[in-house]
């Protein structure tokens, strides 16, 4: 009796899932969902720093203001670097899915170069500001600026290290399922940094330089 009941139950549930058309989600979907939740939590952390910057952006303590400090030409080049590196990152992921390995290596070399160019420009800007006496200890505005923009820069640095590791994994392990999943996670991370940069560009630089 018990056994019969059990088989009936499993039969019923199997039919139910078949009728729903909703079996277990593919691993690809589940992994992307988990990583997406991590990215959202990262964005929420950034939102706290954005709120701090928005509150403190006027508190210059008699020091240099945003209008004095920001060079928009530099910022425009940084934005272009990030946008194009996001593009090449997407193309590289597509190339691995289609097993076109030379395309992948070229795309990810470009992604790394553009990310490094962004980081170099940002560090040059930071050192120029600190050299001009506008370091993070000058005013509340500058503390908020350096922690917000600096945290984005730290994320870019982590992404650059991650590019090296993921490229090595693709080279050594080949385009297998788990490598592809990690590659897609990296791709999502890199695109998310773009989204944060858009907010930074609008709130900090474009609003500040007016």
């Amino acid at each position, binding site marked *: 009796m018990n056994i019969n009941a059990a088989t009936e139950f499993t039969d019923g549930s*199997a*039919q139910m899932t*078949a*009728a729903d*058309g*909703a*079996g*277990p*989600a*593919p*691993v*690809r*979907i589940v992994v*992307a*969902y988990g990583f*997406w*939740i991590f990215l*959202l*939590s990262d*964005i*929420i952390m950034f*939102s*706290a720093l*954005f*709120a*701090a910057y*928005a*509150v403190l952006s006027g508190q210059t303590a008699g020091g240099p203001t945003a209008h004095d400090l920001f060079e*928009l030409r530099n910022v*425009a080049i940084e934005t272009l670097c990030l*946008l*194009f590196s*996001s*593009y090449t990152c*997407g*193309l590289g*992921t*597509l190339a691995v*899915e*289609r*097993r076109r390995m030379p395309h992948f290596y070229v795309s990810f070399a470009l992604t790394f170069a553009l990310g490094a160019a962004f980081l170099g420009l940002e560090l040059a800007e930071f050192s120029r500001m600190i050299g001009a006496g506008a370091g993070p200890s000058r005013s509340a505005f500058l503390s908020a600026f350096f922690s917000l923009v600096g945290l984005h820069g730290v994320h870019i640095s982590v992404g650059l290290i991650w590019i090296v590791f993921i490229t090595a994994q693709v080279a050594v392990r080949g*385009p297998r*399922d788990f490598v*592809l*999943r990690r590659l*897609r996670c990296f*791709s*999502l991370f890199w*695109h998310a940094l*773009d*989204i944060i940069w*858009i*907010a930074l*560009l*609008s*709130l900090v630089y*474009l*609003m500040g*330089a*007016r």
Partner: protein
Amino acid sequence: MPDSNRKTSGPSSGTGPSSSSSPSPTATPTADRSPGVDEDAPSGSITSYTVGLLFALALTGASFLVSQTQLLWAPGVAVGLAVLAIAQMGVHLVFFFHLSSGPDNTNNVLALAFGVLIVALVVTGSLWIMYNLNLNMMPSSAIMEMRQ
């Protein structure tokens, strides 16, 4: 019969010919694939990335234009920049993250909605509270007078 049902109404119908049961020319050896795994499902296409890049460049250009010229009424520039930034975030979500209204994306969209809610609460809440505190704070000259 249930098997044939499952094949026709499986979760991967509509995503293309790359489901793990049917041999596709591009797939690597499928012997080690379990049924729930379809890693070869494409994540976007070159066209969608290119379109997304063009939209993003146009919106970024518009942001710089709005902030650097007198095109918009000056008090409205902040609103204009916010609208452009949100539009560009939407472009990135659709063309780079491939967020869609499909059944695979329901959870992602719900999580995004929750994230947007929390971000809005943190940012507007902080601005609102700090604005009120600023308004109600005694000027420092008055504090000095009280101490004397």
